[in-house]
């Protein structure tokens, strides 16, 4: 697959404080690559450096294996995290202006704008002034603006923030469709569940540094170990002595046993001691959401998992 964007060793500091350091990843044609991380992890900083809105202190950014300095702005669609539209203009006017800035033919832009407005339930709104749109409608218009010129690389910074579930689905569907048509998509989010469903690869960032980078499947098999949740009062020490248990979390009568990577759930279950108090028991994989929370709250689950897999 053709690499559309390659970021290598990216670093940026403000006032001697390192915001991001040694960020390396790439985005390929037709895939959805997600940058994940809690608020303030450095996602937007990374993206703004790619877009040339900030200048990195270290590292290189290459578009389409082209070492040329110039950012191919006309081939990139960008939806920033902090976004808005001119207020006192008509929807179609602003869409055409943004298309014109990308040197996209205006008649084609008009056609595409109408088509997308219809798709996003905004049919007939092209002559409405932007200030009359609701927040959600505004978001949709911004999204249309970012793809109206058929970009080869689409960069979406927190595209789902502030959207209702229906619009979220709409966006997800559209983003997936764009990827299928060959657009390379880089999106950032702190909503793990959304990303888990749609991303092909992910880059998990925390405090400006890489935590995980890989395909969704790899990440799942690598990091998403089994965990066993038991309801019933049991001694913590005893649970910790059970085989394959790496860590135990207890909260009142609920215990979560984090199991090692190679555990075979059926065998492990058979070997549970008879005297264990079990009112309920469930066994499932750690979700990406939990990994994410874990990182964001600085617990060490992932670190242990990481060490074991290393």
């Amino acid at each position, binding site marked *: 697959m053709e690499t559309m964007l390659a970021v290598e060793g990216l670093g940026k500091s403000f006032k001697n404080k390192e915001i991001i350091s040694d960020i390396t990843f790439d985005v390929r044609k037709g895939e959805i690559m997600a940058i994940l991380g809690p608020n303030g992890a450095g996602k937007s900083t990374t993206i703004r450096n790619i877009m040339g*809105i900030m200048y990195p202190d270290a590292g290189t950014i290459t578009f389409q294996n082209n070492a040329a300095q110039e950012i191919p*702005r006309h081939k*990139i669609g960008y939806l*920033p995290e902090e976004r*808005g539209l001119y207020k006192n203009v008509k929807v179609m*006017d602003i869409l055409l*202006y*943004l298309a014109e*800035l*990308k040197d996209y033919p205006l008649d084609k832009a008009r056609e595409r704008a109408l088509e997308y407005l219809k798709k996003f339930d905004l049919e007939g709104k092209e002559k409405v002034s932007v200030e009359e749109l609701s927040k959600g409608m505004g978001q949709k218009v911004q999204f249309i603006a970012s793809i109206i010129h058929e970009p080869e690389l689409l960069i979406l910074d927190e595209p789902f923030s502030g959207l209702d579930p229906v619009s979220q689905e709409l966006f997800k569907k559209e983003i997936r469709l764009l990827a299928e048509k060959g657009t390379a998509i880089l999106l950032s989010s702190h909503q793990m569940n959304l990303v888990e469903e749609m991303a092909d690869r992910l880059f998990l960032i925390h405090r400006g540094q890489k935590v995980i980078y890989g395909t969704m499947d790899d990440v799942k098999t690598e990091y998403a170990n089994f965990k066993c949740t038991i309801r019933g009062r049991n001694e913590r020490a005893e649970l910790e002595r059970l085989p394959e248990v790496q860590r135990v979390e207890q909260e009142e009568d609920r215990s979560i046993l984090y199991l090692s990577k190679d555990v075979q759930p059926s065998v492990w279950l058979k070997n549970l001691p008879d005297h264990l108090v079990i009112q309920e028991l469930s066994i499932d994989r750690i979700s990406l959401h939990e990994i994410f929370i874990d990182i964001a709250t600085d617990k060490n689950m992932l670190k242990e998992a990481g060490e074991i897999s290393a």
Partner: protein
Amino acid sequence: MRSVRNTMKVARWEVKRNIKNKSYIIGLFLTPAIFLFFFMAPTIFGGSDDDSSTTTVFVQDQLGVYEMLEETVNQAEFPWDMQQTDIAESEIGSALADAENTAYVILDDRVAESGTVPVYTSEGVGQSFSGQLQALAGPLQALQLQQLGLSEEEMAAVTQGVNFQETTAEELAAGDGGTTETSEGGISGMMLERLVPGAFAGIIMLSIVFSGMAIFQSASQEKKDKIAEIILSSLTPNELMQGKIIGYFLLGLIQVAVFIAVVLPLAIWRLDIPVLEYLFVPELILLVGIAILGYLLFATIFVGIGATMADISTAGNFQGMVMMLPFLPFIFIGPVLSNPTGLMAQVGTYIPFTSPGVILLRLATMEEWPWIEIVIALAILVVSVWIFMKLAGKIFKTGILMYGKNATPGEIWKWIRA
């Protein structure tokens, strides 16, 4: 090449979206309308023959100048029936309610303090009345100056400026022994030749200074609407900034065009001078050039400052002071008019912020142009425009992306040095 194209795209957009904006359109026609109202009203309606009904004018005189005013009125042959009164100011309202074609003029300390004369008029007082009132300004001004402690001579020099009588001006020039070299007040043919293009350039400059202030709005709106980052994904901050400057320049020119289309025909019709002949002289090119440089200077300053502010209503002291810069030349109007070659006039010529206004003023009033001063001032102006363009570019680049917060002078200084 692409950079120029991008700049023009932004410029076109700014023009287009303003022209579609109701408040711009209203302002477009309101400006010449206001101008016409204030400047042409006395000339248009001032003829004493078109309104012959007599106005009863009560003067409440606390200053003891009634007789002097009566004399002025008699000389001017205004259709006034002047009477003295000692009615209290608070009772005038009820007195006027059932009177017709009656006016009350209050002369008290306010004349000296703030130069204001309260005038209350009833129904039926024609518009020519306000024009006639201006005739009283001369004597009252003299009184005001007397209280400021000016000598007779100084007073004569200043008040003569209001009195448009050529003979008196000559007498004065002779009597003053050449201390003032200018022909004050007297409007001769030679003067008009300078004055008309000068006034024209002044109108251009004022219009574009006002539209320059709209730039400021536009830059800070860009931040408020949070669209800057979307726009900057397609072009560079410099292209955006230059596009705005050019766009608002064009908007200013549109304003000038409308202004001229409305005012010029009227001026030709009402004023008894060959306006067009005086307007299209070679000097006009220089004057317009100065006006444009003035615009560029303020436009760059405003676009930079606008980018540091999230909202015009939260302007800090620093930004507020910068906003006042275009009005700086007003300080120089008095000194320059009284002595176009004096020290103040020269100082004003060399300060970039006042230079366009002061030069226009001086060139409009002087018969011999001080070419060396003009060249030096133009050089200073061009260099200043260039420097401010660079500075504004740096401020704009960082400021425009700083949403929701105003930059402090310290931060702005840091961006400039970065």
